[in-house]
């Protein structure tokens, strides 16, 4: 019985002890992970952690030192061309042919893809690339406009799997929002999306699962919700009169009382905590949501690389 008949979506990307070394530099070490069909998968790590190395290995730009991987069930070494036919790829910091107009660049890349461009019109509309903008030469585009062309070329042929390397780089907040909606719609259509990022807030917002990589090693691979549920939240409250008795509240720790204010961390279910503080003397309450950034920083504790990650 295969994975699909058992109810688990099939893997669109599966790596088995995938390793890539450049001489003494270990860019990827024994990386084993599975990305399922129909999910948005975030691949997190600061610059130099190995995110792009994995993407480039999956697409045949790099040859694995050892281990194996499949994309859409196809071997990354033997079937690289077929993999690229069925996927869409947005390289980090995409370079385009400056002498072409935006429309010509998209036409050219669609022709080379050999699958038409059924989503072009919709993508251009949603990313606000009007016909007049597309007529201009790429050399006259701003960074954000180039990035939008990059997103469109990666998705215009409606690929089964899109691999996006830092896709929101250069997009303004409005376009980032449009882009997130786009990804969610693609997911709703059953498409799979794999994207690398060091912008934790966007990964937290749209990804179903996330992998955290550090120096080529997989540090975590979890559902985003699960990862957050296992994080400590910060709670703050203020009251009038006597302080509430919080002894025995499960998961509460690091309690600090300053006058009429209390600050603590809370792990797990909040209901016990809420019941314990329920009182007419309670004046204010703040429960900060668990953040992916905290989880991420924990994996990178003591590593300078964490400074490159943006919340």
């Amino acid at each position: 019985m295969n994975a699909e008949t058992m109810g688990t979506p099939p893997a669109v990307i599966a790596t088995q002890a995938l390793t890539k070394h450049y001489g003494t530099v270990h860019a990827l070490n024994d990386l084993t992970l599975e990305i399922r069909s129909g999910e948005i998968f975030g691949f997190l790590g600061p610059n130099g952690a190995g995110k792009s190395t994995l993407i480039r290995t999956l697409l045949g730009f790099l040859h694995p030192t050892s281990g194996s991987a499949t994309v859409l069930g196809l071997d990354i070494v033997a079937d690289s061309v077929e993999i690229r036919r069925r996927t869409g790829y947005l390289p980090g910091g995409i370079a385009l042919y400056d002498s072409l107009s935006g429309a010509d660049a998209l036409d050219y890349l669609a022709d080379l893809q050999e699958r038409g461009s059924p989503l072009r019109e919709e993508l251009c509309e949603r990313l606000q690339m009007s016909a007049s903008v597309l007529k201009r030469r790429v050399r006259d585009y701003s960074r954000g406009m180039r990035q939008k062309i990059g997103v469109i070329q990666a998705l215009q042929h409606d690929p089964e799997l899109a691999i996006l390397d830092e896709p929101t780089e250069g997009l303004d907040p409005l376009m980032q929002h449009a882009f997130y909606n786009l990804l969610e719609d693609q997911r709703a259509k059953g498409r799979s999306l794999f994207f690398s990022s060091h912008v934790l807030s966007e990964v937290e917002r749209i990804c179903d699962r996330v992998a955290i990589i550090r120096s080529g090693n997989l540090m975590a691979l979890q559902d985003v919700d699960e990862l957050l549920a296992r994080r400590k939240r910060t709670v703050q409250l203020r009251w009038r009169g006597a302080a509430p008795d919080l002894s025995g509240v499960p998961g509460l720790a690091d309690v600090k009382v300053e006058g009429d204010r209390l600050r603590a961390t809370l792990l797990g279910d909040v209901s016990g905590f809420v019941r314990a503080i329920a009182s007419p003397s309670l004046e204010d309450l703040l429960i900060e949501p668990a953040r992916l950034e905290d989880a991420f920083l924990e994996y990178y504790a003591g590593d300078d690389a964490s400074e490159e990650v943006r919340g």
Partner: protein
Amino acid sequence: MNLRLYLQTLRWNQVRLIVILVASVGWGTLMPIVYVQFADLFKSLANTGKFAEQLMNFGSGSLFTLPGALTLGLEHPLAIAFVGIFAVGSTTSAIAGEREGGTLEVLLSRPISRRRLYLTVAATILTLVALVMLALLAGQMLGVAIEGVGNEIQIGQLPLVFLNGVMLWAAFAAFGLAASVSFDRHGPAIGLTLAYLLVNYFLEILGSLWRDVAWSQQYSLFHHFNPGKILIGNADPLDFVILAVAIVIPVAYALVVFPRRDLAAPS
């Protein structure tokens, strides 16, 4: 071969191709005219003994005969610049230039194998080189017709001259492409290919000017491009074999090395 990529690469070269084709026809036309106008003068100068005869030669060409003049026209630095723009400039920028500019990444994310990309680029360059060679020869035949000296050469040998010329430049283009697939930046690729071209050229010219080192010409690819000999019916099959070997070796190298190379993210 990928037809779309082939046509687009041709399109990117179309402006300079048109300019070079016009210039090539013009330059080709000039050589028979120069020959008719100045051959006697050069011969009399040579007969005075005041000039060493070899100083009136240039590579395998000279101005004493029409075949020699045609050879000189095709080996002249100007003709080399015309063809070299594509055989050296376009080849080295085709892969290494795209890699340096980051567009190779976008190209190779399409369903195109590296071997197919290489062969498509090679076919495009071969087309460009063949067109320039054709324009040079067309110009020369125009000049021959204008001066009415067609009886001094075997015009039926022209296809062989064309083949010989295309093979010479295909050899340099193959070297340029081999360099192009080996480097991440355009600079080293064009530098190495130019050095290869210049060394070959130097050996050919040096041997023609200085009899004591005439042996050096044997080691120059230019020496195996000899329209003068072909046009009087003395084509040497060995010239074609040597040029074929000079094409096959870098092509084989590129076809083996390029697909195996790791293409790390552009820095």
